[in-house]
């Protein structure tokens, strides 16, 4: 039969071995509670349970290029609800990192935002609310950047009015060197390491 999925356990083995929290999905019993409770499921191409099903079936391409793994907003609902105590969210993030590392870019904007966010935390020890959006907006070129800036102008002005956004650039936190050491160490502990 055409289009029939051939089960291939090698991708599951790869995930168990190389993806952060990847081996947790062994314990998934396909109940679907995670998918049912995920607030983003309408936007996902495959809800979490199906991602796990695809991994089991060996559909490497579908999983690593899926939007779903990039869309997880860390709301924790699935983690709280999973009857098998699977940290579904960690698995989703683990897969996202792994996908990026393997050269897949399922959602470019999400990926570049994540990268810039991470870089800034690493450099300053905090987020600069003006600098981060600016970098993200202009990552697609000058014209794109200006369009995006105009789009968000309203919000920006109001934030400033309510003293939620400072005009001057943020400074580094004290002891940012120590923070960087900690982050480096943490990165070394992960299976694949952080994506940035």
């Amino acid at each position, binding site marked *: *039969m055409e289009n*029939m*999925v051939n*089960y291939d356990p090698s991708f599951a083995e790869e995930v168990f071995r190389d993806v952060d929290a990847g081996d947790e999905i062994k314990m998934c019993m396909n109940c679907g509670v995670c998918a049912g409770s995920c607030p983003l499921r309408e936007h996902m191409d495959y809800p979490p349970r199906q991602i796990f099903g695809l991994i*089991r*079936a060996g559909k490497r391409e579908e999983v690593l290029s899926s939007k779903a793994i990039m869309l997880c907003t860390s709301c924790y609902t699935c983690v709280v609800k999973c009857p098998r105590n699977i940290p579904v969210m960690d698995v989703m993030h683990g897969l996202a990192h792994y996908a990026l590392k393997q050269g897949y870019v399922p959602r470019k904007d999400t990926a570049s935002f994540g990268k810039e966010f991470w870089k800034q935390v690493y450099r300053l020890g905090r987020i600069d609310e003006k600098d981060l959006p600016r970098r993200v907006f202009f990552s697609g070129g000058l014209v794109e950047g200006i369009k995006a800036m105009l789009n968000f102008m309203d919000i920006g002005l109001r934030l400033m009015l309510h003293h939620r956004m400072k005009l001057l650039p943020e400074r580094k936190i004290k002891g940012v060197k120590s923070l960087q050491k900690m982050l480096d160490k943490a990165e070394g502990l992960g299976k694949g390491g952080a994506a940035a």
Partner: protein
Amino acid sequence: MDKKTAVYICTGCGIGDALDIEQLKEEGTEDFTIDITRDHPFLCGQEGVDLIKQDIEGEGINTVIIAACSHRVNYDLFNFGQGVIVQRVNLREQVAWSQPAGEEDTQMLAEDNLRIGCSQAKDTELPEPFKAEEEYSKDILVVGGGLAGMTAALETARAGYQAILVEREDRLGGFLGKMKKLITLPYKEVSEPGAEELIKAIEDEPKVKVYTSSTVEKISGGPGLYTVEIKSNGNGVSERVGAVVQATGWVPYDANKLGHLGYGKFKDVVTNVEMEEMAASGKITRPSDGSDAKNVLFIQCAGSRDPEHLPYCSSACCLVSMKQAGYVKEQNPEAVNYILYKDVRTVGQAEDFYRKAQNDGNIFIRGEAANVGEEGGKLFVEADDELLGERVKIEDLDLVVLAVGMVPASKPDTTPRIKAPADAEDADEDGMIEVVPDSGFFANSALNLDYRQGPELPTLKYGFPDSHFICFPYETRRTGVYSAGCIRRPMETAKAIDDAVGAAMKAIQCTEATAEGKAVHPRAGDTTYPEFNMQRCTQCKRCTEECPFGAINEDEEANPLPNPTRCRRCGVCMGACPERIISFKNYSVGMIGNMIKSVHVPEEDEEKPRVLCLICENDALPAVDMAGIKRMKWSPYVRFIPMRCLGSMNLVWIADSLSRGIDGILLLGCRHGDDYQCHFIKGSELAETRLSKVSETLDRLALESERVKFVEVGITDYHKIPAIIDEFMETIDEVGPNPYKGW
């Protein structure tokens, strides 16, 4: 017995406030000979109980009528020993708590209830427990020497009773003896099956007598008095026992019927039982070429939960496949196991073993097998993967294991035929007829009971013995015969052990109760039994056919031959007998008839209808009590007459009541059908069948058929009681008063 009767009316619990007690004493007892009538504000208190005791001792009172709370409470306080008849009259739940205080109708209800009680007490005699002439045996026969049978025998012996264990094969052990490993409580790891140890324990136990290569040829008699004929290695032996445990186990579902899953077509498609035997004998290999099996796929529910094959879940095969997947990984850590399932059903703590199987890396695929095939010497399975919503293919398989379900050993391959009775409609040319599972003629030979209703236990549609599933699981429809293990329902080993212990204990209880002339479940301790006034018997056979427990045999002249120790005291025979010659010391057609007659029926112009409610005392009556406790209200025109079982309802009561001017008759009994709740299995169903014949009576009296109604209620339906009654009262209102009033 010369009766000296006293009536005690309790005025506590709101009864005194609801009723005119003096008038009640007067009106409620005037038709009867009552020696003492007293009231007390707190009858169940020490002072109240002492008052009664004083009258028993000082005045020689031997019949005590207590008009107070429901008979379901305080029965221990109002127990004055073997020689005193106690009659309870409900003035609390059914009167004071469910009717408005001080009303004329409430008062009339209380007076009728007291009259009914006085009438019942008048006709009650002290029971004399049945005592057989032969000596009673308390030994237990266990049929079947697998895990359940061995456990039952051993538990019997350890409780101090002699067990006789009969096994068909030449050695004990059953399926347990064929297993490589066992998965049981606490479901963390597999363990040794332990068959050898169990067999050794039985051999070392002086109180277990083992017959291997033996079959039971005949069991005659009844509980406490069974004679068992055993054919052992060709020789006949005879034993006397008091009760029987049937633990004849299961057989796997016939995989030859599973051709669509490749069985019989590909050598490397095997059943879970074949897999177990292969593993136990050493190595898991491909039957086609003898090479080691590495990639294995288990098809769960192979034939199970499938209306075409076994419609039910066997509840053990999920666990078994996980255990066997462990064997494969143990043999080769690189092996890959796929488990293709509809749902995983590892109940309770067994879920832990499911987790372990997942953690060990076995791949669980939710879906159904669509096709099994072969490619280049290896098997493949195509399945509809429910998660992916696609057809998937799993290739390169060495072995496909079909997790087949359990069929009770009692289930015959083809429905047996017996000689049809003369009046049967669907008999074939040779006068033969197919038997129904519900009869004692359906099951495969195991017990060979010398019962008129057939040699084996009546079964349910899938071949498991019929039992009251919720309340009395080990009971069967043959008193003194208990079923345990996979013959009772499919189960795994831990449950089979529980079952065996439970059934052994029930069997022991039965021998003890029988020796004292007492009934077993559900009328445990009842010392009455049906007595037959044989001179008037017309040999109509209704009693022998309708007794749900096969208690009545037949002699050569076709007379009914009651076996009191087989009797559950349901009274179904009493309800069946058209000649009304079957009665108990405290329950008879005449007695109930008199109770009905004691109800005062007001004249038509008083506009107070009277409705009789014949009510099953097992579930429906407690439900009414419960409704009273919840202070629910219902019509004051209903009079409740409790029945041992609605199956004991005799149609003559209906005819008599209607001809006396009672406006309607409501029957409240247990649910019947596939999920019956009747404590006597067939009682409420028989009552409804009998009722269908009541229309003749109604026609003869020219009365409307709506006047008689049967309603099924469960014990949890108490909240529906008021509505059931009110609805019926409306109907009665519509059809109008019974024209026979005042005749």
